[in-house]
């Protein structure tokens, strides 16, 4: 009994000392993982993930406080990237946080705009130009399609326009194979779609 306790106590002391020394010797600060995660996010800053932007979400993922499937703008592709980075299993987008939509940009109806500047303040990426009491315009190439400018507009003059394909943005499609992959699960239209 006593010898057991003595032996274990001795061990605990030695190991404790080693760990204590190491914790001071190998102290590290910062977390490069967050930046890597952040780089996988679309930077739309829309907050659909439940965080105040992409970086906070990245921090939450790194800390293990958020799952990897909460960013609708990133879509499946983004989740795959995260799963790959973090060595986790892919999982479909969490329905609580929204659905993946085709990319769109905001369009301000310039006839209706009253120049209240509220959308300018709302846009996280400075994509709206204009000054007070003047009509505002969205710089298409800067707009990330986050839709944050929609709610503040008092006259509801902002709408989302899906981006149309042209020759420059056209992509070669996935070749249709003669041997078809296993029969896909039948499409059940959701009630909302059907309505």
């Amino acid at each position, binding site marked *: 009994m006593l010898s057991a306790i003595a032996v274990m106590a001795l061990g605990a002391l030695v190991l404790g000392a080693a760990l204590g020394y190491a914790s001071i010797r190998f102290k590290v600060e910062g977390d490069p993982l967050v930046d890597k995660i952040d780089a996988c996010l679309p930077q739309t*800053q829309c907050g659909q993930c439940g965080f105040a932007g992409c970086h906070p979400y990245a921090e939450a993922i790194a800390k293990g406080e958020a799952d990897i499937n909460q960013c609708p703008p990133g879509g499946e592709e983004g989740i795959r990237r995260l799963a790959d980075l973090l060595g986790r299993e892919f999982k479909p987008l969490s329905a609580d946080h929204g659905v993946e939509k085709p990319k769109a940009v905001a369009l301000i109806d310039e006839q209706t705009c009253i120049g209240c*500047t509220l959308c300018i303040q709302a846009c996280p990426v*400075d994509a709206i130009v204009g000054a007070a009491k*003047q009509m505002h315009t969205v710089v298409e*190439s800067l707009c990330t399609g986050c839709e944050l400018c929609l709610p503040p507009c008092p006259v509801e003059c902002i709408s989302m326009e899906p981006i149309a394909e042209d*020759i420059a943005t056209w992509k070669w499609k996935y*070749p249709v194979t*003669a041997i078809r992959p296993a029969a896909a699960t039948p499409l059940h239209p959701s009630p909302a779609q059907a309505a």
Partner: protein
Amino acid sequence: MGIFSFKGGVKPASHKAESTALPIGEAPLAARYVVPLHQSIGGTPRPCVAVGDAVLRGQRIGEADGWISAAVHAPTSGTVVAIEDAPMPHPSGLPALAVVIEADGCDAWIERQPADPAALGPDGVRAYLQQSGVVGLGGAVFPSHAKLSAGKAGALDELVINGAECEPYITCDDLLMRERAEGIVAGTALFRDLLKPKRVLIGIEDNKPEAIAAMQAAVAKAGEDFAVVAVPTRYPTGGAKELIRVLTGKEVPAAQRSTDQGVQCFNVATAYTAWRAVAFGEPVTSRLVTVTGNVGSARNWDVRIGTPIAEVMALAAPNPDTDGVVMGGPMMGVMLPDTAAPVVKATNCLIAHSPALFPPKPAEMPCIRCGECARACPHQLQPFELYWWSRAKNFGKAQEYALFDCIECGCCNFVCPSHIPLVSYFRFAKSEIWAREKEKAAAEAAKTRFEFKQLRDEREKAEKAERLAKAAARQAEKTAPAATASERPAPAAPGADVTTSATVAAPSPAADGNGDAEAAKKAAIAAALERARAQRASAVPRNTDGLSPARQAEIAAIDARRESATPATAPTPVASAAPAPVPADATTDEEAAKKAAIAAAMARARAQRAAAKPRNTDNLTPAQQAAVAAIDQRRESTGLASPAGATGTAAAPLSTDPHAAPASSPPAADADRTSTP
């Protein structure tokens, strides 16, 4: 002259005899020409004619847009009836901007003036070729003038002229060499004079003995020392890199330009058109097109650019079972979704497709990793690995296996026993990767802007708090009444401080009252000077300096618009960089002085920039500039933009390649207005 060889390659049946029986024919004039503006790699030319304008053959209708871009010309005389989106000879079937010309039947040329290369000088010749619309006719349609300057490696060792024409069915270069060899040699001499290579090599596949003989004769006649080399017939010897390898033994990697290895390669037709342009003043308005395949009479035609493809096909009397038209050869060509699309500079061959001629492909089987494709690949890639990863959409892996070294020659596809459309998978993977890269760059940019905005918001908040605190302090201490003046004297736009504030400049001339610290004094002087200049620059200073350049530009445009629309509003508000003339407060704090100095310096810099270029669009990326310009144009068309906005501004380049979009220069009028108080 050693002939080298490249690994891989295939030998499909050549089918060239069908279309070489007849000499080159002159295609009859069409009634209507659709001339796409984007016909070469790089920027999209801007239209420089208007609807209703009368044009002559060879008249420039599209202005080169940047260095990697070439002008576009009217193929015949007539009237511009539309500038609109029209169907393109492109696999997508999507339309693009084109100038539609109704021919008047006279086919009158503009005044053609030969150029004198000696007088123009090398740079002049390059510019001349660009203006003449000379682009690579070998398939890549890369603006030739851009390829005509020496690369990093200094002087060129070899100039290679590509007469290989390795793809089955195509014979336009063959016929060109047979019938117009002298022009090709003269064009080659022109290139030689520009590039000064040590040797000039003309490579022709040995299945074209007539062309070789004709070229040899022409070279001898011209007294040049060009070597006409017969190269073994094997697809894709005509690929620039393969031909360079065969003729010089040099391998040009994908990540390099051939000039870095001291070689440059041009197609024979390119040399010919360059010579026509220089020696006769004829811009590129037509090209040779082989019309063959499932047709009654296969032949090469000299076809005007812009001729509807259906009309060209009709010349060859396609057989009734024709079920499509392939533009290009059977190995690399594309099936055209719409034969109303016009002939463009890249159209070297039109093949009538029929199931008898090109049997439908057997069903795709799984890859058995037999390695046939790897043995056939002229770039020694592992197509089945590329396929494996492209199919699985693991693009990172595909790139690891050098996806972007693939030239899409189709050799692998040709030999695959499983009939896998390998090239389609590679194209899919490549375009996905490009799209993703674009997205990533956009995300990165969005992130920077977001962070900048956050920083600004924070700073604003902090400054506001500070200001409030100071104001409170001042109130309490009851200091000099001068100091209690309003923070912003008569802002022109009352709402402006909501969106942005002059926070940077706010504490500007802080320390001008006391002289204890030298820095403070200097800063004060600078700030005072600054203020003076700013006041000079604009009668009513507005606090727009905290704005991003993009937004400043926008405001300027909007202001201009307002001005023209409602002249009764406030006197000419202009984007400027005036620091808010916040009165000096009594603090003698050194820190404040330093801050003030910095702020003043920044303000000064900004003001200078603003003075020089009121539309502060210079630090936008070309793409963003293009976007801004596009917005301008939209407004213009809805009648909202000011005349000032319209002057000088080019019409919107509906860019197809955002990266090569033009840098729209700021209208001079604005600049003038800003600098005159």
